[in-house]
């Protein structure tokens, strides 16, 4: 399993149009095909760098803009283990956990492109193996963690018939 960090040239306010352009979200319904076009408008061929298990690293307000669920779907289909950012836009945040994509919230200034990372959700630690430092991550809210563990909100809803257990 690969575990490299990938950074785009832009760091903050990466919107869902950049994650997957409106041109493709309408046209392509196959998730793997969609994954071949992530970040195409901001950095050509970015998708080719990502191997299963890798991390995408960004700054503030990741996933702002359009509510398109194709954005987290395409990121998940690209094989990413998790997105690591300082903060997230709210619609994207819900969408990601709803479809079982892990989002990690922490300081990302000290993660460089191609650093090797290891995520420990039990200890709430992101290990930067290349730099030999442990980064504390904000605990994932209980409700989101449950969705993540079950593979998404649909699986959770089907099993529990609603959300009464988590409120």
């Amino acid at each position, binding site marked *: 399993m690969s575990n490299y960090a990938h950074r785009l040239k832009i760091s903050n*306010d990466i*919107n869902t*149009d*950049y994650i997957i*352009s*409106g*041109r493709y*979200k*309408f*046209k*392509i*319904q196959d998730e793997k095909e969609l994954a071949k076009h992530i970040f*195409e*408008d*901001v950095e050509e061929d970015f998708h080719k760098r990502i191997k299963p298990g890798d991390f995408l690293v960004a700054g*503030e*307000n990741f996933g*702002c*803009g*359009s*509510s*398109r*669920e*194709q954005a*987290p*779907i395409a990121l998940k289909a690209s094989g990413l283990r998790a997105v690591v950012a300082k*903060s997230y*836009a*709210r*619609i994207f945040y*819900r*969408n990601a956990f*709803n*479809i079982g994509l892990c989002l990690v919230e922490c300081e990302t200034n000290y993660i460089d492109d191609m650093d090797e990372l290891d995520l420990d959700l039990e200890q709430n630690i992101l290990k930067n193996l290349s730099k030999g430092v442990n980064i504390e991550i904000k605990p994932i809210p209980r*409700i989101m963690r449950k969705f993540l563990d079950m593979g*998404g*909100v*649909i699986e959770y*809803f*089907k099993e529990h018939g*609603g*959300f*009464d257990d*988590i*409120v």
Partner: protein
Amino acid sequence: MRQTIAEKILSEHSGKRARAGDIVIANVDFCFGQDGTSGIIIDSFRKLGVENVFDKDRFSIVIDHSAPSPNIGVSAIHAKIRKFSQEQDVRLFDIGQGVCHQIIPESGYVTCGDLVLGADSHTCTYGAINALSTGVGSTDVAIALAGGKNWFKVPETIKVVADGELPKGVYSKDVILYIIGNIGADGASYRSVEFYGDVIDDFSVDARFTISNMAVEMGAKCGLMAADKKTLAWLKKHALREPRPVEADEDAKYAETLEYDMSELVPQIACPHTVDNVHGIDEMLGTPIDEVSIGTCTNGRLEDLEIAARILKGRKVAHGLKLIVTPASKRIYLDALKKGYIEIFVEAGAVVNNPGCGPCVGTHQGVLADGENALSTANRNFKGRMGNPNANIYLASPATAAATALEGEISDPREHSRRLS
């Protein structure tokens, strides 16, 4: 007591006293999707294993983003939406009816005090009519469709007070662009925004929609306004259900209060490639523009078309400039026809699209070429938004758009305001 509008609406819909930070399960009054998001709503709904939508009168789909279809892939999605709508016997607004954020309130599905979920980020638009409406992903709408409920985190609220009297030639679009420039693209993240002040009171309901529409551009969950006589008169004309106006308590707890005096505001421009990159028009005058788009869920309403038509009347758009006008709904289109605005646009050299999202989403009806600059009345100027990552998008009011269309470069609409007054 001590509750904001969002806390009150979520309390009323969850049966629990909701305070900022709480998680509640709340009943949804209405939900919908558009053609870019409904394919996944349908897939998710099927995966949930539920046979019928919880209430066929509380869900609708609007085909607006790529309508009529520009390619085979989109046509397949549209066909899937039509089939599902028929099977479930839910109301479908097919091509040419207009943008969801105009049609949904115009058709009466939203009223004061409602909780509305839409699979489109600009669902926050109906905050202008005192509804807590918010954009979510497709799967969250599917969940609501299955049982009429979803879970909500109760947001903190920022109170924005816009006082003063706006100068001539300055509009609600300028007000909200200025506020977004000030607060920033994530300055209201996860929060509700309540808008107050003389400026809001003076605006028509059309102009207020423009403000609430863009609340998401500063990260907000919703952009709420209190209901006044204008709101209630508007709802009397449109709404299918009785309004339940919700006011914040006088001692409501706000995360922050921001006060602005808008008396000296100048027309504002959001420059490439972020919505919070806002500058006064003086700094941008003379920027060459290749395409002007007037329309969208932000500024495609009758009042917007009227403002543009007054400036364009009897004049011609600049040589080589493409002016594209897209009314936000069929009703607006027909009203604009009756009032002669459409004739003014066509005589001036504009292309008038069918009602819908027009070129805003970059799939059709005005895709930009490499190196082109567009000035649009839309709400997003992200790189690639209008279909080409090698083009630039500037955002402004319909008045600035019309003035710019005449000159072929970013131009000050206040000169026209003086001419016309």
